[in-house]
C-alpha cells in the first residue's frame, strides 16, 4: 500500500482527470479530451474506466466492478484487486451496496440511486467514427449538430435487415443536443441511461476522451418514426432465477446443442435465487455458475 499513491495515479493526474469529468458533466454528451496515462494494463482492458475510477474514488467508497454484467470474470476480478491493492477501498459484489461501480458493456439490473457513480469503459467514444473517419470532420459535425449521417447508418440497417440491426453501442441523443456512443452496452440497457439518478461517467483511455451524463439527464435512442427504437433481449426467462426482465447470456452446455439462458448480471441473478426464485434448470445451478465463469 505504501508504494502507491492512493488509487495508483498521482494527485496532479487525478486533478486533471477531475477537471475533464466536471467539464463533461457540464456539457452532457460532449467528448472532453484528456491526457490519458499509461496504465499497468493493455489498452482495451479498461484503461479509460480505471483512470476515471481512480480520479473518482475516495477512501470511504465501496467499489464494484462488472464485466458484461459479471463480477467474476478476469477483467472484473483484476480491476477490483487493482483498487483493493492501490486504494485500499472496500469492495463488494452487491450493486445496491456499492458507491462506485466500474462497468464494461452493461448497466446493472438493480436500479441505481443518487449516491452512486457508474463508470463505463469505452473502446471507441466517437459514434460517427465508422461513418466518417476524419476526427477533424466529426468534431465539426458535433459542433454544428450535423447528425444526418447517424440516421444513414440506421437506414442502411433497415434496408439490409428489415429492422434496425444495431444491437449494442446504439447511438443516443443527450438532452436534444449531442449524439453519444453509450459504449458497447446492449440496446436493452439504453432506456436505463435516461433519467438515471446516478452519475454516469465514460472513460476512453486509448482515445483519450471522457464524457458524462449528470443525474436525471434525458437520453433518447435514435430511430425512425416508422421503425421505433426497441430494447431487445433474448425471448426467454433466466434458467437459473426465472427472471423475465433481465438481459440474458446464452450459454452452451454440451456438444449436443444443449443451451441455457442465464442473467448476464450475476449479482441480480444470485440475489433473486437467494430470495427463493427458481428457474427451469435451477437444480443444475452450481454447475452452471461455474460453467459460465
Amino acid at each position: 500500500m505504501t508504494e502507491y499513491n492512493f488509487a495508483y495515479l498521482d494527485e496532479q493526474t487525478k486533478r486533471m482527470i477531475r477537471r475533464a469529468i466536471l467539464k463533461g458533466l457540464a456539457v452532457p454528451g460532449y467528448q472532453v479530451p484528456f491526457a490519458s496515462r499509461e496504465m499497468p494494463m493493455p489498452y482495451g482492458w479498461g484503461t479509460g474506466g480505471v483512470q476515471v475510477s481512480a480520479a473518482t474514488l475516495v477512501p470511504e467508497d465501496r467499489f464494484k466492478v462488472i464485466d458484461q454484467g459479471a463480477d467474476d470474470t478476469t477483467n472484473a476480478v483484476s480491476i477490483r484487486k487493482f483498487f483493493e491493492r492501490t486504494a485500499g477501498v472496500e469492495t463488494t459484489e452487491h450493486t445496491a451496496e456499492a458507491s462506485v461501480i466500474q462497468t464494461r458493456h452493461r448497466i446493472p439490473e438493480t436500479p441505481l440511486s443518487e449516491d452512486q457513480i457508474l463508470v463505463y469503459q469505452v473502446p471507441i467514444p466517437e459514434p460517427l467514427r465508422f461513418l466518417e473517419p476524419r476526427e477533424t470532420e466529426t468534431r465539426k459535425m458535433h459542433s454544428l449538430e450535423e447528425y444526418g449521417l447517424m440516421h444513414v447508418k440506421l437506414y442502411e440497417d433497415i434496408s439490409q435487415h428489415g429492422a434496425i440491426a444495431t444491437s449494442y453501442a446504439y447511438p443516443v441523443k443527450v438532452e436534444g443536443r449531442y449524439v453519444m456512443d453509450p459504449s458497447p452496452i446492449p440496446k436493452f440497457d439504453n432506456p436505463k441511461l435516461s433519467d438515471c439518478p446516478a452519475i454516469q461517467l465514460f472513460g476512453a483511455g486509448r482515445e483519450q476522451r471522457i464524457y458524462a451524463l449528470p443525474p436525471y439527464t434525458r437520453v433518447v435512442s435514435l430511430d425512425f418514426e416508422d421503425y421505433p427504437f426497441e430494447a431487445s433481449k433474448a425471448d426467454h426467462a433466466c434458467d437459473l432465477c426465472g427472471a423475465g426482465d433481465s438481459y440474458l447470456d446464452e450459454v452452451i452446455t454440451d456438444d449436443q446443442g444443449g443451451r441455457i439462458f442465464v442473467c448476464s448480471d450475476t449479482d441480480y441473478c444470485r440475489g433473486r435465487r437467494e430470495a427463493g426464485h427458481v428457474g427451469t434448470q435451477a437444480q443444475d445451478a452450481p454447475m452452471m455458475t461455474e460453467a459460465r465463469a
Partner: protein
Amino acid sequence: MSPQPLLQVRDITRFYGTRIGCRDVSFDLYPGEVMGIVGESGSGKSTLLGCLAGQLAPDAGEVLFDTRTDGPRDTLKMSEPERRMLSRTDWAFVHQHARDGLRMGVSAGGNVGERLMAVGARHYGDIRDQAVDWLGRVEIPADRVDDRPTAFSGGMQQRLQIARNLVTGPRLVFMDEPTGGLDVSVQARLLDLLRGLVREMGLSAIIVTHDLAVVRLLADRLMVMKDGHVVETGLTDQVLDDPQHGYTQLLVSSVLQV
C-alpha cells in the same frame, strides 16, 4: 426571368501565395440560368468554383446569394453552420469523380437519403420512396436501391451523385467537370438527363468544364478563363461561333472534328 439575380459574384480573388488562383471575377446568375466556365487546366476555373461554393476562402470579393428567407446575403460572411445548411438545402455540388461526392460504403438509397435525413426526415418509408423515385429519374433501376455504388458503373455512379444532390430540391447546382472521365455515349446520355432536369426543375447551374461540347449543350452563357482572369463572356453560341479574344479563338479551333 425574375429581375433579382440568384447569385451575384463581385471581384472574387484568390491567391496561392504569390500566384494568382483567380482574380477579379464578377458576374450575375439569374434563376433558371446555366453558366458555363471554360478554360484550360490551371486557368483558375476550379478555384473559382470552390470559392463560390464555400469550399475555399477567397482573399477578396463577395458572393451574394438570394436566400429564401432573408434575400441576398454574402455567403462568405455567413457563419459556418448557415453556410453548411445552405450547402445541403439550396445548393448542390456535383464532383468530377463520383467517388468524391458519394459515400462508397453506403447503399444507393442511403446515399440519396442522406441529405433528406440531414434536414430532418425521420420516416424510413418516405425516405425510401423518395430515393426510389429519384433513382428512377436518373435512370437507375429501382432494384439497385440497396446496392452500393462500388457495384455501379462510372456513368451510374455519376447519375447517382446527381440524384443524391438534387433530392432536396436545390436552387443552385455547382458542377465540376460532370462528364469528365466518361466515354462519349455515356456522356451524351448524362448530358441529356442533366438538360432535362435543369429545365424541369428550373435549376440554376454553374458548370466548370474544358469540354466545349458540354457547354454548348447545357449552358446559356459562357465565361472563358485564362491564367486566373476572365478573358471573354457572352451567350454560349455567340462566344463559340464568333470568338473575339485570341485565346478563345485558339480554344474553339482546337476542338477535334470527327
